[in-house]
């Protein structure tokens, strides 16, 4: 295995130069309740947590967020996905289905700025904890509501997962070989992350509006919509000309070569010659400058017409060299190349190291160090932080109920005994 970067993301030490009254991070002082599950809305809360918000993860007392069981388990019981994605959060258990639990939840939300949820529409309402109730309790509240199909429309009650959203949103149809079975577009959770990003944008917009007007609002985000929004000109092109985009296998037909090729050592590379100049750089890397002549494939239109020939020539060249050799030649001429990396390649990649994309974080419970993806985006003055990994279930329940809601130890004990927390 590759050498791993061992630096732990440090608490920003530049606090000294700032005045004591200034916030350390953009969301210092903001409290977020994350009562959602898996990745979608929790990822929005996760981003807020990296940039200073205090995130309270409210979970069912028995089992907690099912993300704790998603993927590879650790010694501690919780999975790696949980440890990585529930970073910076505090876990508070609460059974929202009990009257006591619902009451405590209302108190928590009253003391918070943001609430993130991704139950099926109507679920929180059923428990008496819907938007109307919450908004009345806390008029400045911002509520992120993520679901498969959104809060309205004929499909709102259907079960939704990212896999379904990739299909409904039009992405799955485009991945795979022409006319063959569509494949998973790389990952089964893309739609969750993307919707988390839209959710975070919605929350930050709403926070700004609240700062100006005092008014809260809710954000209604659907998994399939996040996928659909990334479909470039498919909608206008269909409306204008009835163009239906199909699966195109390893190549994108808008330019050539623009696709994936195998090297001699059985690895893969990607090229993206979107202009004549870039093809010229590739031809030079191949040591075959004549390919880029006008008589041959110098012009975009000509390459598109002869795409099979061009791809064959490039394939043959890639197949005659190791990936390292292809890479060296392409980087030398500025050809639009990238290695098509698996995770082992990525751990060995110098750019990932230089950019500290992989962060080692110690987990005291695990007695071990985990490598997790760094906080994004990277802000020059207030970079995000990873101060802890996903917490144990209920790790912060007593602390939060006592510290934030002022409950007495005997009350808290009663709630534990009643299995409310």
């Amino acid at each position, binding site marked *: 295995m590759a050498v791993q970067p061992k630096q732990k993301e440090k608490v920003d030490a530049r606090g000294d130069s700032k005045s004591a009254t200034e916030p350390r991070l953009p969301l210092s002082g903001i409290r977020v309740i994350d009562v959602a599950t898996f990745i979608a809305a929790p990822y929005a809360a996760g981003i807020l947590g990296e940039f200073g918000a205090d995130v309270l993860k409210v979970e069912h007392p028995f089992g907690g967020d099912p993300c704790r069981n998603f993927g590879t388990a650790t010694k501690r019981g919780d999975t790696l996905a949980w440890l990585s*994605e529930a970073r910076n959060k505090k876990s508070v258990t609460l059974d929202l289905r009990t009257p006591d639990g619902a009451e405590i939840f209302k108190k928590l939300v009253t003391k918070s700025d943001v609430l993130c949820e991704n139950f099926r529409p109507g679920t929180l309402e059923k428990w008496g904890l819907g938007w109307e109730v919450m908004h009345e309790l806390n008029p400045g509240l911002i509520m992120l509501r993520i679901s498969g199909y959104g809060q*309205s429309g004929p499909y709102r009650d259907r079960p939704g997962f990212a896999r379904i959203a990739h299909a409904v949103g*039009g992405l799955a149809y485009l991945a795979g070989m022409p006319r063959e079975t569509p*494949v998973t577009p790389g990952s089964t959770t893309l739609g969750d992350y993307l919707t988390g990003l839209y959710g975070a944008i919605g929350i930050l917009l709403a926070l700004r509006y609240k700062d100006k007007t005092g008014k809260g609002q*809710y954000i209604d985000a659907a998994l399939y919509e996040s996928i659909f929004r990334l479909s470039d000109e498919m909608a206008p092109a269909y409306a204008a000309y009835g163009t239906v985009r199909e699966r195109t296998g390893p190549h994108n037909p808008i330019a050539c070569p623009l696709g994936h090729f195998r090297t001699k050592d059985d690895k893969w590379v990607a090229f993206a010659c979107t202009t004549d100049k870039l093809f010229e750089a590739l031809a030079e890397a191949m040591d075959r400058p004549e390919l880029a002549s006008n008589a041959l494939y110098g012009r975009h239109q000509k390459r598109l017409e002869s795409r099979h020939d061009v791809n064959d020539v490039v394939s043959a060249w890639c197949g005659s060299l190791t990936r390292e050799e292809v890479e060296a030649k392409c980087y030398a001429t500025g050809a639009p190349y990238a290695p098509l990396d698996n995770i082992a390649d990525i751990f060995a990649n110098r750019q990932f190291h230089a950019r500290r994309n992989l962060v080692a974080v110690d987990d005291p419970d695990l007695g071990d160090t985990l490598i997790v993806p760094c906080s*994004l985006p990277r*802000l020059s003055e207030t970079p995000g932080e990873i101060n802890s990994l996903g917490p144990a279930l209920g790790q912060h329940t007593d602390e939060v109920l006592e510290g934030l809601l002022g409950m007495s130890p005997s009350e808290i004990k009663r709630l534990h005994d009643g299995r409310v927390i």
Partner: protein
Amino acid sequence: MSEETQDSGARRSKSEAQEEARAEDLASQAREEPAEGSKGLPLDGVRVVDVGNFIAGPYAASILSEFGAEVYKVEYPIAGDPLRALGTPSRRADSTLFWLSEARNRKSVTINLRQPTGAKLFRKLVAKCDVLVESFRPGTMESWGVGWDTLSKDNPGLVMLRVTGYGQTGPFKNHRGFAHLAHAFGGLSYLCGFPGQTPTIPGPNPLADYMVSLYGAIGIMLALRYRDQTGRGQYIDIGTYEAVFRQLDELPTAYGVHGKIREREGSGTIIACPHGHFRTKDDKWVAIACTNDKMFARLAEDAMQRPELAAEASFGLKHKRLAARTEVDRIVADWTASLTRDELMEKCLAAQVPIGALNSIADIFADPHYQAREDLVTIDDPDVGEITVPGVFPKLSETPGRIEHLGPPLGNMTDKVLGELLGLTNAELAEFHKNHVI
């Protein structure tokens, strides 16, 4: 928080030009005060300069514009943003459909940054704005004298989004970056396709360009908030590949601990079954996602009417289904092939089995849910006629975003913006036009 006192404290240190700009800002905000009954938008009064190309970066500016920001698209005078030439032509020579949709809400201002006079003009414009979005290769803006150091000295509160293929640092920072390469470099393409076969592209869309812009928009909103509290601007540095890599759930963590390399998994996944794509009798496709035993039981018993499949001895337990993935998928595929997509959807939905149509864009246009959610918006543009584009996401209850107009003709607001905002006279504008500065 004591926003006002901190704000004024920071403002005092600024140059007089800044004070002037601020006064003008306030005046223009007053002019743009929403009419009675209108709620205003979160980014009213925020000015954004978008000097990026294509989608990576500029889409962040689009989101800001949808929620109230005024966006000036600064383009090279002769040809403009190359996105104008990418994709399907429209009735207007300088705008493809792609441009019309994604350059929504912008005002086009042509400035030639490669000329010192143009660079100077650009600095003046940025000094009057809150946000700058750029996507040149690292060092390019610096070579024109409009890098971060210069611009932030002119405007200490400036927020600058810098999007490139590989970020502003590291050994690969100068390499070519396109979405296609970012999918490969970020680890997504490797996972797309059937095991042992050529990796396919994760859809012929510039996914990564959109993804990185979402992070960009988040960065800008965070930085604006921090600036409002402290007066200090900052820049945001993100590589397109990073946005892709960040969204791969436990992939890095599992490799770090167990050295586990995830491979291509075809149309399914190795962590649940049945969880993939299936063909129907009418030659369409659906996605089915049974993530646990309960869902599989509902599929077998209620939808397929084959309760024996859900018996513990058969495929009732997840580990058994995973061990016999091929067989389970085949049984489900045989069943789906015996029904039309409509019949199949009906049976599965009645049984609460997670299923979705694998939509083409034609299916999407016919889908009642898309219509009910107003996900597709048709804009009637005087130049190009009716154009249908994706709506505004996310949907906010109190301040939903807006699409005021489609991507503009090249330079449609150059004189207006430079005249009104920077006070250029007609004679000066004419001179700049003549010399191809604007």
